[in-house]
């Protein structure tokens, strides 16, 4: 077991290295300061935006939309995935459709949604939902299909079937695959959110909107801060939230293949 102290350093080291190289590049006048503002300026601007509450308002709006869209994607994705896994004819019919839809980048849906869903929040939330839904559906279906038949038989001979079999056995037994779907899904949802906010004219607040609006003021600094926040939030959602879920479940239960 590594000490917390050294793992924090290990974690920060690559970020600090990149920041230092970046700062150096600008300070040595290899790149113009208007084109690529150095990290030092970024940090002071980040401070102002935070203190004024602007950043929090943007981030809060985005996380609110993400929560609605992603929670819908998780609920419906697992339900539809389970349904497809349990009905062979349905699965054979719809599996190709699903594969096709997965390969459509979610941002490509947005122009369609702008027409059908309007220019506001509904479009963004639907894009977030679509981003997560297909990945979660597909991985849930695959996970349930691959459950060890012995575990199923064990439950059945102990008199467990139907809904209880699903909740007590199928779901936990396929959790490795479902969590893979959740992790892929939150990445796709997050990207869809940023793109959706940029393209939806009536959306005023949101981290994607912040970057897009900065274009009108030629404010590269705000754009870069937006990008960093987008990257860092996506990273936190996956590595902190879902990685934690994975550690507390399938990893603790020894269901992940040892590397």
């Amino acid at each position, binding site marked *: 077991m590594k000490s917390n102290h050294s793992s924090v350093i290990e974690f920060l080291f690559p970020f600090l290295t990149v920041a230092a190289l970046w700062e150096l590049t600008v300070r040595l006048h290899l790149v113009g300061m208007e084109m690529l503002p150095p990290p030092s300026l970024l940090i002071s601007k980040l401070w102002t935006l935070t203190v004024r509450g602007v950043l929090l308002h943007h981030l809060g709006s985005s996380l609110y939309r993400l929560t609605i869209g992603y929670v819908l994607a998780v609920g419906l994705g697992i339900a539809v995935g389970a349904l497809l896994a349990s009905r062979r004819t349905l699965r054979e019919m719809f599996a190709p459709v699903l594969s096709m839809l997965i390969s459509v980048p979610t941002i490509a849906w947005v122009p369609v949604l702008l027409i059908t869903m309007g220019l506001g929040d509904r479009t963004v939330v639907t894009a977030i939902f679509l981003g997560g839904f297909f990945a979660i559906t597909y991985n849930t279906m695959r996970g349930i299909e691959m459950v060890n038949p012995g575990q199923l038989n064990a439950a*059945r*001979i*102990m008199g467990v079937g139907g809904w209880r079999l699903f909740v*007590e056995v199928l779901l936990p*037994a396929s*959790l490795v695959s479902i969590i893979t779907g959740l992790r892929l899904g939150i990445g796709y949802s997050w990207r869809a959110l940023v793109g959706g906010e940029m393209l939806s004219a009536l959306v005023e607040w949101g981290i994607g909107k912040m970057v897009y609006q900065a274009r009108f003021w030629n404010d590269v600094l705000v754009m870069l801060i937006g990008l960093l926040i987008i990257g860092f939030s996506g990273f936190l959602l996956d590595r902190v939230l879902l990685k934690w879920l994975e550690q507390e479940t399938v990893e603790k239960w*020894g269901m992940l293949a040892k590397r």
Partner: protein
Amino acid sequence: MSKAIIEIQDVHKIFDQGAAQVEALGGVSLDIREEEFTVLIGPSGCGKSTLLYLMAGFEQPTAGRILLDGVEIAGPGPDRGFVFQDYALFPWKTVLGNVMFGLVHNGWSKQEAREVAREYINLVHLSGFENAYPHTLSGGMKQRVGIARALAYNPKVLLMDEPFGALDAQTRKHMQRELVDIWDKTHKTVVFVTHSVIEAVFLADRIVVMTARPGTVKGIVNVDLSRPRDYTGEDYLTVRKQVLDLLEEEVEKEIRLQEKAI
């Protein structure tokens, strides 16, 4: 002689494997008697595990029928317990959770289930491991959990599908002795599938020798020796030879069958 609890009546089983059809069982009739330890043995591919799966209700016979207490078996149910070769434990549940599973789903309260589960965990000598997850246990310990889980909710019959097949030789012998101990305490009706003659003669009241595919009953050997049995005792070796003689012909047949297939 005790009464028949399972009656297997002219059971056939044919598997569709794409275009080809494989006849696994070709008319098996057999009674499993109450409180007896019955071992099914035969060459690989003779359908002994298939027969066990039919008794469990995981599969349905193509023809013929199987009665449990006079009622035809329509599917799996908690009047039977099953022990799997690959354990088939629930990795997301602790040892206690695994053993409680059949109890909480069959009318025991949480409190009662916990107490009964602890008794059976004690019976298989796993006390102290109640809160361990299966992946932290050795193969022998996993199968003890498998046995406790199958016995805890008090099924009428315990079905065991080569339960010690994945264990090393030392652990296997040890588990055989423990199973005899457990059986002495519970006198459960057991149907046990194996391809080891040594194991069969050590455990069984009755050994059912099956023919090569399609499987039928070749002969039945009654083992009238007191337990625990001595692997090197003269009477043990006599019974062993009896079983081996019945089996040998069938093993050769099966090998010729496989050679033809190649």
